[in-house]
């Protein structure tokens, strides 16, 4: 009998198991395949048929870093749940996190290394790992010897932990300074504003759970902002977790998000003036005497211009509302203000977030329960300090590619061709690069431009570690481990980098001697362990490693994260500036404001290839499988637009065609389009479905953070006269006196 690897064995056993459940599928004339049952001579570790084993690891579906537990039966992953001991997820998990199984078992995964015959097409040929790595390695090695290592670029998605360090080390040893990250969802403006206000750009922990009054400027903390699972439980406890005390929430945004729906009050200020709204509240807090700090006079003079009447005229929110919210904010014991979404995506994003931070200063909530608790930059795993560079970083890369300064581009876990506006010209610039290598599990718009596609393991098949960002107020490091054997001829991305290092030779293999990512991580954890363990203490790294592996997380709940909040408010006062956003396109030609928004399911489009998420009704509209444009009923009426009318939405940067959806909770004059669909090449579930609104966003930028101002584009809307059916689950959207939401909660 030929040699059978463990992986094959697991697959055979899996096939046997499915045979029983799948028996009913054969009713439609499918012939039962001949299956071989092979007895296990030496059963794999932790394996007994019929008994489930749970492994703890880290979710990678967004950047929150939730700990997860994966249920394994007969070598197959069956279910993902939150890891109960992990301080970020606390045993809970969102829809996207649970759909991780669709990533692992996705039928459209890349199964072998591929070489592309011509770019942009699906015309690829299989190639062996050896051939691919030799070709790429020798190309990079030659550049290094010639002293042209600066012509090598590495572009990744948001990467943390030791993988980030590995990338940085690899590029350093090559002699290239061009390792950069691009992630559409990274809150660059928030980090930059916090640097000003609190003296650190490490994201703080917002203690929503213990707040009495939560004022959110555009931050959809229940759906897409920073750490949705963690903040969801925090929200639940804010409402009903404390005896006899129910926290209040107010949401300010042009289009109602999940967090807006949950809020007690939802206010649609004029788009782009949310920061000004915050300054108006700050003005009242100071002038009414609610704020009693020593620096009251400084605040007073900095905020003088932002009187309620002036702010009311600009934001189109009544003076009464501004004063009332300010009074409530000032009177609450634990008030908290947060900013995100469109508020942090204008041309003056940093100024807007600084204005919101000013409210936190005035509430005196820094470092207090229910306030802003600073996280320190954690020393372990060594923070390489890379964070996504936003639009400016992308523009620099595009310029370098256009100028022919890039000879080799390595891309991993990011899809800039999809998640950047068309005007940036990323795809066209890529054509100037002689060699593009994609390290990816899936074909997408960016890998389509690659010459070589090196298939990576999914996160459920990989080793890794992670420091959640934002943290939870004390040091936490998560460890991820493969929960199933790799399904295909793929490699973990860390192993590919290490193989390339060996291939290139020179000092690279000397400084990067590890055979695998697992070995590298374990080595680094051992070093850290030895350093921290003082003499005399029981030095048993293996036991420690096993314990962390089992728990999936290591943390020090007692220890403060170390960061002393910047208690002085003078940097914030000094940074107060007019936060009103500018828009691309003038109001007469382009009467509408385009509000592209992240959805909790697809995020920036990365979730669109997962069938469970495609079939998950959008929380606010119940639409599945497609794109739509939301219009206020009054606006729609004026323009004679009905649901399903195909609209042409034209911005100064391009146009899209998308069916209309009448949405009652959107400001007139705003047209909202969800981000995520509109893929041209992303597997069978995502391709050729809907449109991508990012493509028509004008390339305006927030100057201070260098981030794309994706909420600052004006558009015009025309009815094309064509119609397209919107697939949705909702029928009647009113309770019609049926008391479905509870007695007395039914206002028809």
């Amino acid at each position: 009998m030929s040699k059978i690897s463990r992986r094959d064995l697991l697959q055979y056993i899996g096939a046997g198991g499915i045979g029983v459940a799948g028996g009913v599928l054969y009713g439609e004339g499918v012939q039962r395949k001949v299956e071989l049952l092979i007895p296990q001579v030496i059963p794999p570790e932790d394996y007994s048929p019929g008994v489930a084993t749970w492994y703890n690891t880290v979710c990678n579906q967004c950047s929150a870093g939730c700990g997860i537990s994966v249920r394994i039966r007969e070598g197959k992953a069956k279910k993902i749940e939150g890891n109960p001991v992990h301080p970020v997820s606390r045993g809970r998990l969102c829809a996207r996190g649970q759909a991780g199984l669709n990533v692992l078992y996705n039928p459209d995964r890349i199964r072998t290394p591929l070489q592309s015959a011509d770019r942009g097409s699906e015309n690829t040929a299989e190639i062996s790992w050896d051939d691919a790595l030799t070709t790429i390695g020798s190309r990079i090695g030659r550049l290094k010897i010639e002293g042209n290592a600066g012509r090598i670029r590495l572009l990744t998605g948001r990467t943390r932990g030791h993988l980030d360090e590995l990338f940085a080390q690899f590029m350093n040893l090559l002699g290239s300074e061009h390792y950069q990250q691009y992630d559409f969802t990274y809150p660059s403006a928030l980090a930059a504003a916090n640097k000003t206000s609190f003296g650190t750009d490490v994201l703080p922990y917002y203690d929503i759970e213990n707040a009495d009054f939560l004022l959110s400027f555009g931050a959809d903390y229940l759906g897409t902002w920073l750490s949705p699972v963690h903040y969801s439980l925090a929200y639940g406890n804010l409402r009903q977790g404390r005896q006899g005390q129910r926290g209040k929430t107010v949401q300010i945004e042009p289009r109602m998000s999940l967090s807006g729906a949950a809020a007690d009050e939802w206010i649609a200020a004029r788009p782009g003036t949310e920061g000004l709204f915050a300054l108006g509240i700050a003005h009242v807090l100071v002038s009414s005497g609610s704020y009693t700090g020593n620096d009251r006079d400084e605040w007073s003079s900095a905020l003088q211009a932002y009187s309620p009447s002036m702010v009311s005229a600009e934001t189109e929110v009544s003076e009464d509302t501004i004063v009332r919210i300010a009074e409530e904010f000032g009177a609450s014991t634990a008030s908290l203000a947060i900013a995100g979404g469109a508020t942090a995506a204008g041309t003056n994003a940093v100024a807007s977030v600084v204005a919101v931070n000013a409210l936190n200063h005035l509430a005196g909530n820094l470092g207090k329960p229910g306030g802003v608790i600073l996280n320190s930059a954690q020393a372990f795993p060594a923070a390489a300090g890379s964070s996504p560079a936003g639009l400016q970083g992308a523009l620099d890369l595009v310029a370098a590619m256009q100028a022919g300064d890039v000879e080799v581009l390595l891309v991993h876990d990011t899809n800039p061709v999809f998640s950047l506006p068309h005007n940036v010209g990323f795809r066209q610039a890529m054509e100037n690069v002689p060699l593009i290598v994609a390290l990816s599990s899936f074909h997408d718009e960016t890998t389509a431009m690659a010459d070589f596609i090196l298939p990576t393991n999914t996160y459920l098949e990989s080793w890794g570690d992670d420091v959640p960002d934002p943290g939870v107020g004390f040091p936490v490091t998560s460890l991820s481990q493969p929960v199933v054997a790799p399904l295909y001829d793929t490699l973990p991305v860390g192993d590919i980098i290490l193989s390339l290092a060996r291939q290139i030779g020179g000092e690279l293999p000397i400084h990067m001697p590890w055979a695998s990512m697992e070995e590298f991580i374990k080595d680094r954890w051992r070093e850290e362990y030895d350093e921290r363990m003082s003499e005399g203490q029981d030095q048993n790294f293996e036991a420690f490693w096993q314990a962390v592996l089992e728990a999936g997380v290591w943390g020090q709940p007692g220890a403060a994260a170390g960061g002393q909040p910047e208690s002085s408010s003078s940097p914030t006062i000094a940074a107060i500036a007019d936060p009103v956003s500018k828009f691309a396109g003038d109001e007469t030609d382009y009467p509408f404001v385009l509000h592209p928004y992240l959805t909790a399911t697809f995020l920036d489009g990365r979730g669109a290839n997962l069938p469970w998420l495609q079939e998950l009704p959008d929380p606010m509209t119940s639409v599945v499988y497609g794109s739509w444009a939301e219009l206020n009923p009054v606006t729609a009426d004026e323009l004679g637009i009905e649901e399903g009318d195909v609209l042409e939405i034209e911005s100064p940067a391009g146009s899209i065609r998308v069916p209309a959806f009448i949405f009652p909770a959107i400001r007139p004059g705003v047209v909202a389009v969800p981000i995520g669909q509109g893929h041209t090449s992303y597997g069978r579930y995502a391709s050729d479905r809907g449109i991508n609104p990012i493509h028509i966003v004008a390339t305006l930028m927030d100057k201070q953070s260098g981030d794309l101002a994706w909420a600052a584009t004006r558009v015009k809307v025309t009815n094309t006269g064509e119609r397209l059916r919107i697939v949705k689950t909702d029928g009647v959207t009113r309770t019609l006196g049926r008391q479905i939401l509870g007695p007395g909660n039914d206002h028809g």
Partner: protein
Amino acid sequence: MSTFVEKLRQYSKPGYYDEFDYHWTMTIDLDRCTGCEACVVACQAENNLPIVGEERFAQSREIKWIRIERYWEGEYPNIKMGFIPMLCQHCDDAPCETACPVYATYHNQDGLNTQIYNRCIGTRTCAVYCPYEVRYFNWFTYTWDEPLEQQLNPDVSVREKGVMEKCTFCIQRIRIAKDNAKDDDRRRVRDGEVVPACVQSCPTEAMLFGNSKDPEAKVSKMMKNTRGYTVLEELNTTPSIVYLKKVHA
């Protein structure tokens, strides 16, 4: 035949079901619920719900044992959205049970409204009788694109064409907890030992599940909350799900 009649008499005697150990009950706090739909995907994963595709979705042939219903209140700018998770209410006086010609759906000793797939002949009467519209019919035998079938939960059967299905309160998890209790020589499972997939996943802890026959169970205490109500109470279906209404400040 006589045993059948005897049993029927015994079962229909008022109070018969009161003598058993369990009455599985769920509470859902709408003041915590945010409509995020984590429960919907959790259910899909746990119970082998099929992916029906866009075309069949458009024909309302989707299968979601739990869904989030959304209701608007008011008009812009004073508009509110109310979410309510809707799943089988496991009614004690279930209209669907009386309708089934073949007893494919019946009430079990634990207070569950149970569906026996291999007894179902697909008349779809139960779905017509259900006022909550939580019964889903398999119009087709659905398949999974390879290798997605590797994810299927081996503890739950895969249904085929012509069969009605609905929420089971994750009966497979109840089964496992009871087996564990038996192995430990305990008569009853402990409070919190049975957690259906939706309850487990809920990011806001809006849902709670337990045995309402146990007065000390968390769910028994939660049911007594003054915000508690049952949906479509006037139909006297006596649901096993108690909702806690949202507080409007």
